[in-house]
């Protein structure tokens, strides 16, 4: 059984998280540019002299499929690396993955990681 660890982090923390994952022995990951709403509350921009609030702040989603046994350790590693102690640092969550295939070889499960 495998787990998918998903993290939504601040964009400038991508490199730190990547390093932390490498250190934790994770060999692969997938990232997506996303935008998030939360407590952080957006920033103000100006258009033609009028102020407006942009709610959706740039974030990055990191997805890593890992072995069941590693999931918590990996999640903690991400948390440690992504933390800046300021609002908007993001979330990490874990979900079940039933089956994983490496496209190139057809390998399955942990072998596919």
């Amino acid at each position, binding site marked *: 059984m495998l787990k998918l660890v998903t993290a939504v982090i601040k964009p400038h923390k991508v490199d730190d998280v990547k390093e932390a994952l490498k250190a934790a022995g994770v060999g692969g990951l997938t990232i997506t540019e996303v935008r998030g709403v939360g407590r952080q509350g957006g920033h103000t921009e100006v258009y033609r*002299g009028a102020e407006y609030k942009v709610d959706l702040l740039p974030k990055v989603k990191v997805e890593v499929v890992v072995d069941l046994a590693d999931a918590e350790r990996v999640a903690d590693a991400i948390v440690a690396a992504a933390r800046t102690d300021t609002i908007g640092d993001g979330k990490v969550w874990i979900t079940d993955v039933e089956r994983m295939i490496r496209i190139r070889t057809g390998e399955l499960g942990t072998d596919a990681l």
Partner: protein
Amino acid sequence: MESGDVTWILVSSALVLFMTPGLALFYGGMVRSKNVLNMLLMNVYCMGIVPIVWVLVGYSLVTGEGPAAGIIGTLEYAGMAGVVDPEEILFAFFAMTFAVITPALISGGVADRMKWSAWAVFVPVWVLLVFVPVFYWIYGPNGWLEERGSLDFAGGTVIHINAGVAVLALIAVLGKRRGWPKDIMPPHNLPLVMIGAAILWFGWFGFNAGSAGAADASAIQAFMNTFLAGSAGMIAWLAAETVKGGKATTLGAASGIVAGLVAITPAAGHVGGLAALAFGAIAGVLCFAAISLKYRFGYDDSLDVVAVHLVGGLIGGFLIGFFADPEAFGGADFKAGLFFGGGAELLVEQVLSMVVVMAFCFVVTYIIAKALDATIGLRVSEEDETRGLDLSQHAETAYNLTESGSMDRV
């Protein structure tokens, strides 16, 4: 004409022609990304259709002297028949570049919702029915407004006020964009706006200083003024928005440049350098303030053509009544303004001239808009507006920045 003067008009014509794509980028960067191509094409199209209309009939109508002398020309030179003097050809195409950019200016006001087919018809019709007569009144042989003594060095009234009023008339029929004013519709590409503004300023040297008709003292002063008014417009706008909102913006700088340039256009060869700074500074502040008018009165002038070109043009035309200074030009042959011992006479003529043009332009443009709306329809469907005009009117997408396309031939 000396070869140096010919060269200056050749160069100025090229510069003014270059302004229209500059305007296309200036406007194109300001709309949302789903409408940028439509905006570009609305402008560039003017570079295609207007010259054809101009050589076939427009030029003749602003040139020939006939029964309605002072009001409108004749068809004597239609198709440039008999226009063989090189100097005449030179000024025919210099004027043509102004005919090109004037309807292009209008496009910014109607952005994001006008049918392409309606625009395609509107441009040549408007040039013939509105631009050509107004041009004649002010620059034609014995044009009646100029004869009375009003001044318009390079087209403040003919071009900027005219275009701005046309926007008001068109959008009175067209209506607001869906979501306006609730939704914010910020520029999709500000570097593009800045490229456009830069090309506009660059070209404006030809626009204003070329209007001197030669590389002479008047051209030199107009050049200097074009420089200073753009500078002062930018700084004044940046200052105004810093005071109001706390931030100096890129869009503000670009808009301030244009506001200052619009204001100096009618006066470029009639006032001195310090006056040019004043024109620019006043326009920078007032045009910025004029943006709020559309919210107050509820008209959706998408890219603020009214606030910048109409208001800026009015400011320039009005200030001439105060600052016109024939002495500074070696006692040139025009009326002096209030500040230079000329009394209120010039001011009255300026106001009259602008009011006449505004009234005429509004009425005729409104009729054209109504006629188009009743026939081919002025406005795209709700769905087409939501999908964006690029897709719905031109079946194109502006940016394809990623590799995964998934397209199939049909």
